[in-house]
């Protein structure tokens, strides 16, 4: 392969970032982040399967500042990838390709991600405090 020095397309450095392109690369970034985030899910399940002590320390980790920060990031990435994934499924069905529609669905994804993330954490903390 003589690969190495071949030009890259698109020429990222000459483009102004737009909503469409930013959301597109964000889909990939959140996808990769979620793949790493599956470690949290597996850790939680494996800890519960291992016994009280392992589960306590897992809960301690998830309850710590760093753990909560990780979970918060995970929830944003999840809701974004979920909403934008549904947007992709509509495109796969051949719907919503007109430019105004693409921008409308793009903003809808951004807003839905914010609302779902906030709701999740607000309700989660209400449940936690009332438990």
């Amino acid at each position, binding site marked *: *392969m003589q*690969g190495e020095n071949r030009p890259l397309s698109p020429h990222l450095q000459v483009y102004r970032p737009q909503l469409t392109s930013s959301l597109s690369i964000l889909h*990939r970034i959140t*996808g*990769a982040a*979620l*793949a790493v985030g*599956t*470690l949290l*899910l*597996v850790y939680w*399940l*494996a800890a*519960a*399967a291992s016994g*009280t002590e392992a*589960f*306590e320390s897992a809960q301690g980790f998830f309850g710590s500042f760093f753990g909560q920060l990780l979970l918060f990031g995970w*929830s944003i990435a*999840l809701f974004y990838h*979920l909403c934008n*994934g*549904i947007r*992709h*499924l509509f495109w*796969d069905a051949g719907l919503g390709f007109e430019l105004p529609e693409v921008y409308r669905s793009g903003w809808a994804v951004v807003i839905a991600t914010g609302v779902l993330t906030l709701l*999740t954490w607000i*309700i*989660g*903390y209400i*449940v*936690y405090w009332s*438990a």
Partner: protein
Amino acid sequence: MSLQSHLARVRGLGSAKAGTAHWWSQRLTAIALVPLLVWFVASLIGMAGADYYTMRAWVGSPVVAGLLILLIVATFYHAYLGLQVIIEDYVHREACKIGSLLLVKAACLVLAMTGVLSVLSILFKG
């Protein structure tokens, strides 16, 4: 002169006749993950701060265990398909590409197995 037969020389050079399989699997797992994730996140919210016994009782119900296993399998299948495309897009040296693809596939398999076996062990031990 080569000892290779004519058939062996041309085999694998044409279309693999599986062009849409990757795309289709990715969409199907995506569609399956929509309800599974809504259910899972809603359950997590409901269990915020739950202790060991509450959590095990939840996982230990056959319906929940079944849905969790489906969630795990769909998640790691979808994750592998996505990571595969990312690697194929950005890693161009053949040895690195195949190496990282195999590594990611192995990691997904190990994590998926760990998750599924954890759920099954909770289910059967009660």
